[in-house]
């Protein structure tokens, strides 16, 4: 705590919705959030201290966690995402076949219908569709998670600086983001990937992130500008807090919620985008396994044998669905106003 002046008095400034005087760091910020939540029309009333250890004011996060656990939408999304994560981490649990081993495919068994031996049937090369679909989860998730992380870090940080500093940095960053925003993302990603020649998880991530950061940037910038004028920021400034402290301790925790909501939904969107790019042949390349690539491979014989296309397609849709459901649930819990 480099700035004791802020934490002490801020507790009294915030007004008394539960909680004692020994405030944890950055206490002013969570209080302001409670005030906002309580005021919002139609929103659930703030529950100041339920769930939090006695003597500590409830944070937005413990509130949100309580809200979330009661929602069937969240529970369904969480279970689904748990299974997907497990599939990405240890695919061996779900299938005994190793699809990266070429010996596991037999051309003589090509395009078999689902059976006891091959639950999802086999593809054009006689490979087990179940094994390939399960092993494809990892690349999809890697692209989705890494692209989300990069866009949140880059877009979020630039948005924080632009929104907080204003003036020239804001004008410059905003113009640059407009330029990137105007470029159609699928076509742009296709071009960037063509420069690299070979698509891997990391080049796909880069191509998507280069074109997607302006969205996080805009949301963060708008949230920071809204938070900048709030009373608790004025109070912190009046008490002599430094610019960096106000930016990271007071503004960031309040502005970050809207970014998190969008990031969760975007995770699903990036996974779909990876599949699309791999389908077009510029994304992840064989022998790596990707759902988009499997769909492209199954396409020429789609009308005779639909299962090698439909199973990866179903997994892809379920994964995207899981993250979009999670995004919906998190949004409802974090910001009732957006509902």
């Amino acid at each position, binding site marked *: 705590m480099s700035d004791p002046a802020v934490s002490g008095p801020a507790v009294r400034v915030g007004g008394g919705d539960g909680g004692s005087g020994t405030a944890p760091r950055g206490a002013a910020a969570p209080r302001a959030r409670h005030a906002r939540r309580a005021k919002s029309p139609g929103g659930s009333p703030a529950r100041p201290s339920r769930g939090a250890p006695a003597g500590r004011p409830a944070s937005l996060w413990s509130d949100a966690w309580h809200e979330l656990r009661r929602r069937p939408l969240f529970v369904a999304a969480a279970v689904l995402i748990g299974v997907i994560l497990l599939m990405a981490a240890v695919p061996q649990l779900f299938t005994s076949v190793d699809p990266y081993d070429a010996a596991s495919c037999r051309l003589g068994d090509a395009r078999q219908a689902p059976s006891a031996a091959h639950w999802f049937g086999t593809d054009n090369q006689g490979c087990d569709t179940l094994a390939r679909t399960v092993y494809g989860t990892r690349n999809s998730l890697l692209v989705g998670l890494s692209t989300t992380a990069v866009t949140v870090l880059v877009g979020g940080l630039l948005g924080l600086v632009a929104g907080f500093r204003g003036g020239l940095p804001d004008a410059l960053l905003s*113009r*640059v983001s*407009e*330029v*990137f925003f*105007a*470029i*159609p*993302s*699928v*076509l*742009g990603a*296709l*071009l*960037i990937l*063509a*420069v690299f*020649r070979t698509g891997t998880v990391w080049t796909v991530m880069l191509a998507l992130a280069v074109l997607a950061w302006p969205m996080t940037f805009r949301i963060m910038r708008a949230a920071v500008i809204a938070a900048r004028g709030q009373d608790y920021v004025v109070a912190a400034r009046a008490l002599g807090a430094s610019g960096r402290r106000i930016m990271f301790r007071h503004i960031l925790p309040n502005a970050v919620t809207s970014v998190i909501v969008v990031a969760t939904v975007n995770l*699903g969107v990036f996974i*779909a985008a990876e*599949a*699309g790019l791999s*389908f*077009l042949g510029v994304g992840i390349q064989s022998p790596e396994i990707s759902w*988009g690539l499997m*769909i492209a491979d199954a*396409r020429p014989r*789609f*009308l005779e044998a*639909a299962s090698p*296309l*439909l199973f990866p*397609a*179903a997994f*892809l*849709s379920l994964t*995207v*669905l899981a993250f*979009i*459901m999670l995004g*919906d649930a998190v949004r409802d819990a974090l910001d009732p106003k957006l*509902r």
Partner: protein
Amino acid sequence: MTARPHQVPLRRGPPAIRETPAELYERLVLGRYIIRRLLQAIPVLLGATLLIYAVVFALPGDPIASMYGEKRMDPDIIRIVREQYHLNDPFIVQYWHYISGVFQGDLGTTFAKVPVSEIIAGKFQVTLNLGLTALLMEAVIGVGLGFYAALRRGRAQDTMVLAATLLLISIPTLVTGFVLQLLLGVRLRQGTGIEIFPISGVSDGWRSYLLPAFVLAGTSIAYLTRLTRTSLAETLRADYIRTAVAKGMPRRRVVGRHALRNALIPLVTYLGADLGTLMGGAVITETIFNLPGIGQELFRSVYERQQPVVVGIVTLLVLVYILANLIVDLLYAVLDPRIRYE
């Protein structure tokens, strides 16, 4: 929103035969606004084309070599051709040659001397048809469903619409494309013997676009439905709606005249921004349904290193994005007379 309140009222109703001074002033203000918006778009256009030009410049391979294939060429001819296309100049000089042509309405020629505009025109028409059909479906279905849900907020129908939009948002174009192609294009035809939805190419006129446009619009339909539902529900809580109901106005009129028009503004904004997104994202749909649009052309041009075609396509799409957003801003005044331009 770039439009700001202004004290001079914008002209409404049928156009007057003689212009009053206020109307003249009004027209000048609107004209100045449009010109300013177009000027503001220039840096975006320059930045986006420069960026794309740089990426295309960095593409591996030599365009002249790929033009002559495996054949060994006379070095003199190669030198002359390279000079003709300014290929020996530094990057920024090449870009200058290109962009000064664009501002004179010339998108350049390919390395086979075919004007780029000629190559793109037909392809662009296909993608534009696809994009506009998708936009129309989006507007009709999205607003309709959202309207339906908003008037039944909290009831079973509302929940069903919400669940349907969740599904529609989650299923990628790649999946809906193939599934609908199989179910509606192939199985339905096998079942009934009539071809209702053509599944490939554009030889069936407007019917060719129905299925691809629906696939392309899928996610947007869902977003627009949700947006309509939220926007209309919000508007229905406004004071003027309560007043209208209190003075005995029929519900149909309250919703249709007062609420809908006020709820339209965010929807129009979304639709305007979406045309560019739909056209730019059409490449997957075009591939699934074999539509000869700009996505396919871009794909081919990237591999043939036809820089002018690639940059030309992206430039056109950026222009569509900018113009659609300008039209949206101008529509605001029609929807809400309180919005003025300055």
